[in-house]
């Protein structure tokens, strides 16, 4: 079960970076939370894994509802984000980050992940879980570097924090900390959703 979780989290991390349809990104994010829950269920008490999965489901639901209700049209891909309202749309600040660029970035992130796992193993963590942690954190940071729009970068921020949480939950499994981390995730998603909604309502009013 742990191996399945690790493989799924590697695949979903890659999808979040490569795919630019926001619905697919949210689906991959949901899969990622389930995969991390599966990994955690093997190494921590199952209720902690369940909390993480439930929080992940809420996170994805909140982001989905915010995106749908704020004017992101259903077929819009992230390469050319457009709003269904006035059609003005907003421009991707980094239009050169096409599929080839992102695929190359993904390869570099994978190399970096293996190097980090080998040279800087995480303390008290099995190597394969350490690889997953590094992978998710690096993927999240790369997404944050590639875009500054909340709907595009929000899943990146959540992915980076999920990678860290996978590591931290193995180090510190206090219920108070688990609940506070869940609160951070839910409030963070609420804030991201708020920004997504504002941007959706005012697509042409942004300054960088």
């Amino acid at each position, binding site marked *: 079960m742990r191996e399945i979780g690790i493989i799924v989290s590697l695949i979903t991390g890659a999808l979040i970076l490569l795919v630019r349809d926001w619905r697919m990104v949210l689906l991959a994010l949901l899969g990622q939370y389930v995969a991390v829950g599966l990994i955690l269920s093997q190494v921590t008490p199952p209720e902690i894994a369940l909390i993480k999965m439930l929080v992940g489901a809420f996170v994805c639901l909140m982001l989905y509802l915010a995106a749908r209700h704020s004017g992101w049209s259903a077929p819009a891909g992230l390469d050319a984000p457009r709003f269904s309202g006035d059609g003005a749309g907003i421009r991707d600040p980094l239009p050169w980050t096409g599929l080839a660029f992102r695929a190359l970035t993904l390869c570099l992130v994978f190399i970096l992940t293996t190097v980090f796992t080998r040279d800087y193993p995480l*303390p008290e963590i099995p190597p394969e879980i350490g690889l997953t942690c590094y992978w998710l954190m690096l993927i999240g940071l790369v997404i*944050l570097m590639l875009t*500054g*729009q*909340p709907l595009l*970068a929000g899943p990146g*921020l959540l992915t*980076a*924090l999920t990678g*860290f949480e996978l590591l*931290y939950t193995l*180090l*510190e499994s*206090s219920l*108070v*900390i688990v609940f*506070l*981390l869940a*609160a*951070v995730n839910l*409030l*963070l998603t*609420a*804030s*991201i959703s*708020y*920004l997504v909604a*504002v*941007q959706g*309502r*005012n697509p042409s*009013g*942004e*300054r*960088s």
Partner: protein
Amino acid sequence: MIDPPLWLIILPLGAAIPVYLLRDWQFGGHLAALVSVFAGILAAIFPPTNPLQLMGRVLLLDPLTQYTLAIYFIASAWLYIAGHSLRVGRNFLPLGLCMSGLFAIAAMSRHLAISSLAMTLAAITIVPAVQDDRSDSVQGAWRFLVAMSLALPFFLLAAWHIDAYRADVAYAASLSQAATLLAVGFGMWLAAFPMYGVLTTSGDFSSSVSGTLVLIGFPMMALTLLTHLLAEATWFGWWEQTARMLLLAGLASVILGGLLILIQRALRAMLGYAALFDLGCLLIALSVQGAHGALVLYASLATRALGLTLLGIATETLLEKPGEDSLTSLRGVGRRQPLATVALMIGSFTLAGTPLAAGFAGRWLMLRDLAQLNEQWAWLVVLAGLGVVIAYLRTLFVLARPDEAGSRVLRPIAILWIPSVVLLILSLASIALGVFPNPILHVASMLVILYPLPQF
């Protein structure tokens, strides 16, 4: 029976709900201000208490925490009462109160993981207020959210290292990693060099009133937590690079703040860089630790809050009619808003540490300590302060010019009574503390006895 310090958490968090319901009425602003003043007074007068247990974690209201919470609560009360008449987001009041309650948890908690989680929750909570219902401010709010969220892992890992060391001395080897993690984390929270863009950006994009709340709150609470950490985890103080890094960050922040403010062409952006300059001075005071290090730090925390509150309210008052915040669109505004213009100058002088303003005494003592270490660095700080003064004098020149070529007709505008009264009171307080600094120095010196700064 609720332990008295817990009221500092319960009051603001509990008041957030009624304030949310009343936020569209003037009474909502008054209620938020009343609760904040009351919490500030409670924070100041509570007697020393024993450590409390909350969900298995220790909370302690020590003298430094009392002092910083009292300053923050009272500064936020001025912002609530004046901000309600100005252009701030609809959720500014309830979210500001939530942030205050979370700051109280962060400052009182003696467990770094809980403190950092509370600080992160506070940052996330205030994001809609930073965004401020303005369509052009999503990017600023997003950057603030990302930086504050990414600081959390550094603190949690550092907390784990520290806990492991406390449980088993064999983990002492990993303390250098903890110190590095803390340096990065505090760098992001303090928003000093090289992370200064986090808060200067939020000052630029958001309303000056909500931006000021953030500019006062986060660095102040981060400095409080850093001081707690230095006092309790003595190994961190022993780390020889700590003082040098703080001094470097302080000097770089001072120089960048003093230089970059000169090239700003918008009033809100200037607020962020003036705050950066002042934050650099606080870090220098903390790192140099000369004869007056702790005294300067504690006194400057109060004068910084006063100066920033003045600047924030004055800036937003001046921008109320023009809407735009570029200097070119503000020509002549000073003639119609003389009190706000004077308050803007006094606020900037307070942060720059010029004579006759509240920040002077602390700045003078800091410069004397710094000159004993390196005289050239002291001159650099003076020159950077001059940069802040010149930038605001240039603003005064623009504000005082006639708004149309050759026209000297003053068009009457509606006076914003509440912000004007607040500005008048705070300006008089700043001048009074500039001329007679003894009260603030006396309080700071008492605090130095009760909570001395750890020595590097």
